């Protein structure tokens, strides 16, 4: 076979018929309304308590400043809040509302919050059994006795996975917009969002800050989420090649991801954790100008770490899959 396309077609059809993607859409259809409702409550509360967003934001700043004085608040949180306060201050100084309640803003904050755990989990649901399910069902014997080289079969699976990673992110985005728009309205595409905050220790350097329309911000955010999702997908893909059982493969990846999100919250006491892929997944922090989980991390560093993990995983996947004996 010269073309990889029929193989990708096979894998895509199998993916569709396994209804994995449908499950993801259903999960989204349940979760997004819940978050929309919660967000609506917050917006309602703010409307009741505050005259307009400026007062809400100022209160937020003051409340955070107060917690900075408290000794019970851990230092890394203080650092985080200090930086966030400076950013909010910037928005306030420029009379720009960072979180106007509209559909697009909801999408932006939902994507931001789901980029470290929720989207990777959905990606995993698709990636974790892409090879191991063939082993569990025994169909791998049929697959590998056809006149196609093994690396082509694995590559077709990887390409299919890539397609679905794109689809998952876009579907999350679209569903989020459609559902949240019902409540918050479908506007907000042109609303300016500031980006380019440079963080030096606990000080925020505003010299490079510039506004981008929210739609462009969303596209950039999506791209960064895509990159880390691809890394998660490739790692789950490797586990799927190495582990026979789908359950084991899902559990392994899930443990890694959850450990990652826990570590992100307390990693400052263990700087070497920055070399773990899980800690580097939230690339959107660099766009938003939030402080990275561990001091010294920046976009280039995170991209490097993620790329190294992904390349190593790809190497292992292809090496093992093409060499290994199918014993049962």
């Amino acid at each position, binding site marked *: 076979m010269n073309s990889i396309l029929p193989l990708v077609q096979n894998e895509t059809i199998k993916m569709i018929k396994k209804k994995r993607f449908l499950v993801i859409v259903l999960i989204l259809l349940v979760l997004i309304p819940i978050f929309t409702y919660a967000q609506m409550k917050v917006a309602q509360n703010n409307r009741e308590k505050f005259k307009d967003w400026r007062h809400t934001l100022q209160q937020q700043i003051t409340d955070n400043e107060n917690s900075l004085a408290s000794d019970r608040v851990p230092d890394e949180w203080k650092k985080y809040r200090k930086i966030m306060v400076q950013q909010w201050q910037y928005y306030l100084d420029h009379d720009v509302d960072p979180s106007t309640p509209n559909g697009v803003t909801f999408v932006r904050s939902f994507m931001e919050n789901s980029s470290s755990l929720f989207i990777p989990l959905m990606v995993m649901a698709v990636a974790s059994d892409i090879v191991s399910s063939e082993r569990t069902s025994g169909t791998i014997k049929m697959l590998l006795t056809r006149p196609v080289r093994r690396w082509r079969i694995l590559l077709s699976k990887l390409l299919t996975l890539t397609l679905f990673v794109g689809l998952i992110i876009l579907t999350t985005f679209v569903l989020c917009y459609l559902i949240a728009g019902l409540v918050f309205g479908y506007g907000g595409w042109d609303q300016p969002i500031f*980006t380019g905050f440079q963080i030096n220790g606990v000080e925020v350097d505003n010299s490079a800050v510039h506004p981008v329309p929210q739609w462009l911000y969303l596209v950039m955010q999506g791209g960064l989420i895509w990159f880390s999702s691809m890394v998660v997908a490739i790692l789950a893909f490797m586990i799927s090649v190495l582990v026979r059982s789908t359950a084991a493969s899902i559990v392994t990846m899930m443990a890694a991801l959850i450990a990652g999100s826990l570590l992100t919250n307390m990693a400052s006491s263990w700087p070497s954790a920055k070399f773990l892929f899980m800690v580097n997944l939230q690339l959107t922090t660099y766009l938003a100008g939030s402080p990275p989980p561990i001091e010294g991390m920046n976009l280039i560093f995170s991209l490097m770490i993620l790329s190294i993990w992904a390349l190593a995983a790809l190497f292992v996947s292809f090496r093992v899959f093409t060499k290994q004996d199918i014993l049962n």
Partner: protein
Amino acid sequence: MKSNIVWRWTAMAGIVSTLLLVVGFGYGVNDILNPQGMELSVDTSTPKQPPATSDFAAKTSIQVASIGDSLTRGTGDPSGEGYVRKVVKQLSVKLDKPVKLLNNLGINGLRADQLVHKLDEQGFKNAITEADLILLTIGGNDIFNSALDGDFTSQSFELDTLLDKVDESSKDLKKILLQIDELNPNAKIVYIGLYNPLADIQSMRQIGDTVVQRWNNLAAATINKHPNMTLVPTADLFQAALPSYISSDHFHPNALGYEQIAYRVIQGLAP
């Protein structure tokens, strides 16, 4: 074949979304690595207008902003209300019209010199400009900043040092009051005077009283020149019954103490 159509659409959608995301990734990385900073013009199309009159009776609703230190924050009150919320509630009853708290901008540990800078912040300006009533506490931290540690032996608690500090910080207080007045000449500004938190410590009582008196006098000197400013004295209140009005940290008022302060504020506003 049906599955053929499904596959085609899925693949197309997958390719399109992947391409879009890759482009976004490129843009995002470029934007982060080479940020094009620009001078931003502040949108001033809707400048904040201070209220037209200072007469509460002529208004349908009253908006309150509170600024200052931990007393404004309400530290020491288990209910978290502090005097600010109590004033808002009681004033609403008294005037029989809605009273709304715009912002409570009390920050624990804030000193007068810090507040001077805070007043430059847009958020503070917004709140001050729009308010009909501005409540202010400040100065306690400037003078008694190490009292909370219980360290009364140091140099900082000698009378002369303290009095020097009072003179110094009173200038900041004056600046603050004038600045607020400038931002919003039609708002009523209520400054809550200092009390002596050291009254229950025998050795410090005398010094505390002297210092607080000096501070309050200096404050009154500024406030009395402006008809829209009011000084609400609290020193006598706490002098009389300190143990029942002070919270367990021996510095901040307790719920009852805040209740008393609020009562006095209301009295000063709408006798």
